């Protein structure tokens, strides 16, 4: 069994929209994967099944031999603490500072303040936000918010990083830099990274596995 496994997964939303149609997918530990497809192909739904923001209509999702599709709600915090997620809509708290948003996964993990500060300094350097450390998040530009979200996803060194359209509103160079950071992180830490994107340019610039989704079906894996 792979590190992450989808077995005959279907997802139909209440309005009858079929988001995923018999998805079978296996991803190994340390893989760098692009989940490519047009808008509405089912990329975000697939990601949400991993974070357990959504449940499959039928089928199974396994992560590290744990069937997360039937995980009891009380175990969700344990699952989520082991994920690093760059959300499509960022999920940053606008009135918190950059630093406060950045260390939120560490607070949840109960990391000591001194260690949290040290880890935050390293990540701020990595995502080039050192000079914005004490700025309110709502004052940041779109690109800076994306970087902050990336930093927050990596700060606790997760084994699995999910990035849902992380380059959505970014210019080419910034987008490449951001995905480059994810690629380096995967190389260095051995983490599995899954990037959902509709950008062909990005997919072609980085070595990695390509999984193509179309209308909820995997047509290339």
């Amino acid at each position: 069994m792979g590190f992450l496994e989808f077995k005959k997964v279907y997802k139909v939303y209440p309005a009858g929209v079929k988001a995923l149609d018999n998805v079978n997918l296996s991803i190994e530990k340390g893989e760098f994967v692009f989940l490519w497809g047009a808008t509405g192909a089912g990329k975000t739904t697939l990601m949400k099944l991993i974070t357990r923001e959504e449940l499959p209509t039928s089928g199974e999702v396994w992560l590290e031999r744990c069937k997360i599709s039937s995980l009891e709600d009380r175990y969700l915090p344990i699952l989520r603490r082991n994920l690093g997620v760059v959300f499509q809509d960022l999920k940053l708290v606008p009135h918190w500072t950059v630093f406060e948003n950045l260390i939120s996964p560490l607070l949840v993990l109960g990391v000591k303040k001194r260690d949290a500060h040290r880890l935050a300094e390293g990540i701020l350097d990595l995502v080039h936000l050192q000079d914005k450390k004490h700025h309110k998040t709502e004052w940041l530009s779109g690109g800076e918010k994306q970087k902050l979200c990336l930093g927050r996803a990596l700060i606790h060194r997760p084994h699995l990083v999910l990035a849902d359209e992380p380059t959505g509103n970014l210019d080419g160079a910034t987008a490449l830099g951001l995905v480059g950071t994810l690629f380096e992180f995967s190389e260095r830490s051995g983490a599995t990274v899954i990037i959902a994107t509709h950008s062909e340019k990005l997919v072609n610039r980085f070595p990695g596995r390509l999984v193509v989704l179309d209308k909820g079906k995997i047509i290339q894996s």
Partner: protein
Amino acid sequence: MPKSKEAFHHRGTSYIVMGFLSIFITQLLLNLFIFGYLELEQMGGVWQSSFTIRAFFPEEVSPEVVEDVKERVKALPLVGEVKLVDSEEAKSRFLSYFNLQEEDLGLEENPFPPSLEVQAQRVEELPFLAQELEKIEEFEEVFYGGENTDALLRFYRFFLTAGGLLLLALFVFSLLVVTTVIRASIQARETEIEVWNLMGATKRFIRAPFIYQGVMEGLSGGVTAFVVSLVFFHFLLDFLNTSFPLFFWINWEELILPLGVVSILMSSFLGFLGALLACNSIEEESAKK
């Protein structure tokens, strides 16, 4: 280690002020009730000494029987104090009451029977105690204040019941206010809660700052109400003691302990319970979604 209460360090001031004020006002009203209740208890104590059951023996009763009955009465559960009034004391009381001399009576023998004067432990238990005494065969007659006493007791009971209900209503009202305030506070922080959930925060981690907020609001409201009440009652009792010196007013010092304990315990408990209920209801709502 970072505390989870730090997780929500940007709490809205308006919600904190609302929570504080609601508990403060409720606690002030509660303190007023406590004052009234204690004053009533004080008056009850005064009534207790006035309302005494008199149980008369037959004239020919022997001193041994009287002693025996006295001990039996003392052992009854509702009894406070028991005093034996022998025939001689009964006669001298009669003479003194009507301002007469013994010769005025012109009696060879003392016709006044001995009696027991019995006080109840609590004034409202007087009629029940009188019924108990009537069951003792050795008594010829049992008297207590009758209609007047019953009327006063009815008033006393009504006051306690109404006060108890008022207290309950105030508690529920206060709980509703605190719950509503904390609920609003939680709803205003939906974004933070969603982010914490996605970061893998536990229920306890997310609840902790709201529970902390509830308890702190309760505690600060309660302590403020305690101080304000004490100052108010100090001046009120000064005024009442000067204006109505013959009435039995409670001592200001006697208020400190009950008001302090109730203010601090009740308000922090209210804050805690309100926050807990608010967290539960929000969690239930989000689970339904």
